């Protein structure tokens, strides 16, 4: 029987993170007395990250020399599900227009998740009827997870592929067909596409977020894709084989963790279930979508706080099945994506102490060495995304100052169901 979210093994890995955090604090305490412990502590931490850098570079390289090719799209029916809640009307209309324009034999289905403001429901209904778009209204807000469930149940039987997009996502003309082409390979259960920011040039923050998206997609997701193990098909643009999503949708909608029904990070959970069932999940940069990002620091931090809670819940869930079936994914998640941030806690505290007590050491030793390693770590950016370098550099500082601490906070508040940015 498949391991479910919230099961014993899932909880074990979740509690293990507290162990790593506690271990990090203990190592820091011992480091103040024993130099050898300090050297071991930061050396191990450094070696994990260095190994991850090699691993990512190797995967990217392999992907370049052994490019995956997929069967051509041949008119198979695609269902496009668009859940919406309190969406800003102009953006929503633009999103629907882009789907109408997109190539492919498609059925569009909008699910209004009990909106109380945003687009006028009568106008929405009239517009949908005019263009042959299916629409369903929830009488009350039930959550995006239920909206997706409703859409899949309604359309999966009559369509080969299910594509889900956000109500503020604009699609490129080729996005749908490029997204579903990998799904014609029977080994692949889900695919995700490239996401660009509509408002990237709005201010310094959005430029920084643009660089963060670029690295996340073009380095990490691209690398993961070469092993068929992309861990999150972004809610902006995700494609699923109908038979695969149908087999997991009941479990998906009932997901619970620590005794609570889960509301957010549904995209990552859906991807997790596809991977658990033994299918590959891939990224294709040929399917392009555009979305908006919060343009203020508080808005971005709220979004990131929600994502980090979901990250912890879902990354620990990945461990429950990956240790048997996908050992590389297991090691990647356990060491690089979960151990590193929590093991770093003691280092971050020591860093703060050093900044206060020895600012000259911080400026002359730590900062330059950190910048050098950043440069090494993201060296491919020089060739593939030169314009993103300033934004990426800013993001690194922003991460250390704000986002890192959200990880630790998220560990303690993972049960919090608040969406924080929705409507």
């Amino acid at each position, binding site marked *: 029987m498949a391991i479910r979210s919230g099961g014993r093994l899932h909880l074990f890995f979740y509690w293990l993170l507290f162990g790593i955090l506690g271990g990090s604090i203990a190592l820091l305490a011992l*480091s103040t007395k024993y130099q050898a412990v300090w050297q071991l502590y930061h050396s191990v931490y450094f070696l994990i990250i260095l190994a991850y850098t090699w691993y990512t*570079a190797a995967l990217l390289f392999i992907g370049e020399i052994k490019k995956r090719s997929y069967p051509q799209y041949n008119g198979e029916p695609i269902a496009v599900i668009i859940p919406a809640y309190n969406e800003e009307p102009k953006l929503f209309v633009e999103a629907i227009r882009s789907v109408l324009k997109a190539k492919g034999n498609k059925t569009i289905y909008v699910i209004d998740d009990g909106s109380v403001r945003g687009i006028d429901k009568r106008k929405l209904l009239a517009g949908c009827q005019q263009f042959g778009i299916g629409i369903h209204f929830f009488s009350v807000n039930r959550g995006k997870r239920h909206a997706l469930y409703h859409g899949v149940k309604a359309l999966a039987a009559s369509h080969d592929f299910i594509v889900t997009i956000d109500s503020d996502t604009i699609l490129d003309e080729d996005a749908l067909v490029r997204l579903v082409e990998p799904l014609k390979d029977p080994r692949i259960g889900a695919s995700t596409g490239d996401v660009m920011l509509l408002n990237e040039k709005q201010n310094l923050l959005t430029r920084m977020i643009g660089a963060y998206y670029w690295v996340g997609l073009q380095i990490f997701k691209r690398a993961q894709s070469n092993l068929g193990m992309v861990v999150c098909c972004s809610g902006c643009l995700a494609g699923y084989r109908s038979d695969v999503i149908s087999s997991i949708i009941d479990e998906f909608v009932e997901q619970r963790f620590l005794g609570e029904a889960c509301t957010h990070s549904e995209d990552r959970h859906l991807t997790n279930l596809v991977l658990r069932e033994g299918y590959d999940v891939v990224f294709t940069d040929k399917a392009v979508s555009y979305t908006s990002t919060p343009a203020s620091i508080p808005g971005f931090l709220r979004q990131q706080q929600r994502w980090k809670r979901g990250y912890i819940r879902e990354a620990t869930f990945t461990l429950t099945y990956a240790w048997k079936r996908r050992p590389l994914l297991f090691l990647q998640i356990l060491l690089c994506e979960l151990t590193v941030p929590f093991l770093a806690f003691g280092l971050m505290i020591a860093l703060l*102490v*050093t900044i206060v007590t020895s600012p000259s050491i911080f400026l002359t*030793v730590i900062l330059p060495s950190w910048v050098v390693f*950043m440069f090494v770590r993201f060296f491919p950016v020089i060739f593939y995304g030169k314009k993103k370098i300033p934004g990426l550099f800013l993001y690194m500082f922003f*991460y250390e100052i704000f986002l890192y601490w959200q990880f630790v906070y998220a560990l303690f508040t993972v049960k919090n169901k608040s969406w924080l940015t929705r409507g």
Partner: protein
Amino acid sequence: MNKVSFVARWGIVFAVLGFFTLYSAAALGVGHNKAYADAISHNAAFRGSKDFVVFEDDGDGGGYHGGHGSRSARMICAIDQNQLNALRAAYATTTYTTTDVGGQPKGIAEVYKTPSVNKHALYQTIGLDTHGPQCQVLKTSESFLLFLLPGVS
């Protein structure tokens, strides 16, 4: 992208990564050992001694030990047989033989810093003047310590 450009790009990527990895290994391990051997050799050249005591120097003012950017300091002092005996009687020591850069064997008694090992008490036990010519402070500045990376989640 043509083949030459592809090979050049990835060649550079792996060269940079490889160089950095080797540099890291050198700085983390080999570099410390070489500085250590050099210091012993240097000290021996002045003193002509064949035994040394090595211990961590916690500095006169204490300070934050084991933090980022800490410049680890070891005190290396030439000692004679009587001092070595006194040291062994008072502290748990690790003794071993190493060679200096000239290939001459040198006896090392290493005392690890613990809360109970006080630098000044140690000096008194073996009657050392740490400011005297028989002692040398070996400082190794850790040139890279913290590489916290942005996570993408």
